[in-house]
């Protein structure tokens, strides 16, 4: 079996702060990380590899040259091969153009049996690229998967697809795509030998042209959506802050206030 895991390097948005004076993002000291949901996708691929000997896992990313870091991290954890799609031609791509570019990269790897994505990336939060890539590839996609088993004959995947208040047991023929939720697993940490192997790895970037992509479908020009304005969310100012009250006093005051506002 050949599994392709699509990864994205993202700024750690939990560290991003807004400078209240200039109302701009403070990115200083914000590290670049592997998108947390993609870690779960990678872990699912690695667990499938362990369960099905002979399986090969390829980690794929699209991004600037430094995105090679997350591919090295993936190798440290056990990925066999990597593909770094790095091309100015894809700059400004929205989800339509991005999913096209990634679908070409996936296709250039042959015909993988399974393409796994994280549920969404924490910088864009669109959750569109996984299903989009699947559509370009013409394969099914099951989104929000927390469990995946592949039949012994390697022809079908049985997955648990979670929704807001239930889960479905779904059977999908391979090849197919999955997007993975956090509760699927606990991502492993890289091993020492894996890290050593990753350190020696020289990752050569691949261009979109080399993956057979049609330049007319890439980048800003091929992107229907445009960001026309970026602004900071209006800051909500806090209301009353009670400090130095005894716990019982604060509690009584709160309950009185809630009753007063007819909230309880």
């Amino acid at each position, binding site marked *: 079996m050949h599994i392709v895991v699509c990864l994205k390097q993202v700024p750690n948005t939990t560290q991003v702060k807004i400078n209240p004076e200039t109302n701009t993002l403070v990115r200083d000291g914000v590290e670049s990380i592997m998108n947390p949901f993609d870690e779960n996708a990678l872990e699912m691929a690695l667990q499938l590899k362990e369960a099905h000997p002979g399986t090969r896992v390829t980690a794929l990313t699209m991004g600037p040259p430094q995105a090679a870091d997350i591919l090295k991290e993936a190798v440290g954890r056990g990925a066999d091969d990597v593909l770094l799609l790095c091309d100015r031609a894809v700059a400004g791509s929205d989800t339509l153009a991005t999913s096209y570019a990634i679908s070409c990269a996936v296709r250039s790897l042959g015909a993988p049996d399974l393409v796994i994505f994280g549920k969404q990336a924490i910088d864009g939060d669109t959750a569109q690229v996984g299903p989009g890539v699947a559509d370009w590839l013409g394969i099914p996609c099951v989104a929000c998967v927390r469990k995946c088993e592949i039949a012994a004959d390697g022809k079908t995947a049985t997955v648990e697809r979670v929704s807001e208040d239930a889960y479905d047991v779904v059977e999908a023929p391979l090849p197919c795509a999955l997007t993975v939720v956090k509760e699927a697993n606990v991502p492993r*940490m*890289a091993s*020492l030998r894996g890290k050593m192997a990753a350190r020696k790895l020289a990752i050569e970037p691949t261009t979109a042209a080399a993956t057979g992509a049609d330049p007319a479908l890439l980048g800003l020009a091929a992107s229907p959506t445009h960001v026309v304005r970026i602004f900071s969310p209006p800051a909500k100012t806090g209301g009353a802050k009670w400090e130095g009250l005894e716990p019982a006093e604060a509690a009584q005051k709160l309950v009185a206030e809630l009753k007063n506002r007819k909230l309880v």
Partner: protein
Amino acid sequence: MAELNYGLSELALEIRSMMREFAQTRVKPVRAELDEKGIFPIDLLRELGKMDLMGLYIPEAYGGTFDGDSLPNIIAVEELSRVCIGVSVSFAANGLGSDPILIGGSEEQKKKYLPAIARGEKLAAYALTEPNAGSDAGSIRTTAVKKGDKYVLNGTKQWITNGGEADVYCVFAVTDKNRGARGVSCFIVEKGTPGFSFGKKENKMGIRASATRELIFEDCEVPAENLIGREGTGFIWAMKTFDVSRPGIAAQAIGLAQGALDEAVSYAKVRQQFGRPVIANQGLSWMLAEMATKIEAARALTYATVRTIDSGAKDYSKFSAMCKMYASDMAMEVTTNAVQVLGGYGYMKEYPVEKMMRDAKILQIYEGTNQIQRDIIGLALNKEYAGAAKA
């Protein structure tokens, strides 16, 4: 954070960052629960095995990553201890349990046992102490009688770290009771051997995540090929093991004290009294300054000792004893002071320093009490100055 240049290798630095992340993400969230309920951290150890971190002291030929530099292992223990020594002692006890095989074992024994230990699939334990043989290890009563191609073991071992959890035990037993310490031999005993069972698990003051248990041998037959070295060499393996393992106890102490300092300084910067953070009080900041200084002194002594051992020096018992003694006394002091810095909060289980202080005490006791360490150092001084007195 500024740090002294200890000339750590790339491997040591890599392992430090891996262990640091592991301790923060895996151990810290569960340490209070492991402590409270006395849960052995088997999942954590298995995960460390998958990360190739259970064989840092085992040579590459036997599946580990040891390349002649012991500092990566020492630093791994230190980083794990910074978050929880209940977990770190369970980790380090594998090294202690493997050391007799590494030091005195045959090629066959090494090939048979060490690779699985390096992968974290099997755990090891070191079984010397008995109810009546603590510091006086020469007075052990467990016996091993040769019968054909087997030895028959009888007796009880006490307070064995990783007891019940480990798969491979290095057990010290008397093969010739007329020869005292020279009549002690060391055997590899596998869990599941008929006649080998476990007694009660101890309910301890600290390091509660670790398993401390009795081993009971009742006509337990062990193949003769499981004898390490020749008959009567056990005491040599026991003492040589301690010489190389005591810096590991020091590493636990340094890590633990560093963890307590981390908590104390962070708290002192945030806690406001009389309108300013408490760290602004000179009395308190001097306390922190001394804590930090002593930790660094212990680290320098320990790393230097490890380097000396690695260099092939013959005589290092004194330094091993010094770093174990100094670092563990320091850790007791630093963790006690960390509780003091946090005041009433420090005494509560909501904050980790209470556990750290309970955990610290064992470091002054196990692998030779600190009184024994002083004896060793005193004895060494007496010997070293024998010539000087004549001169």
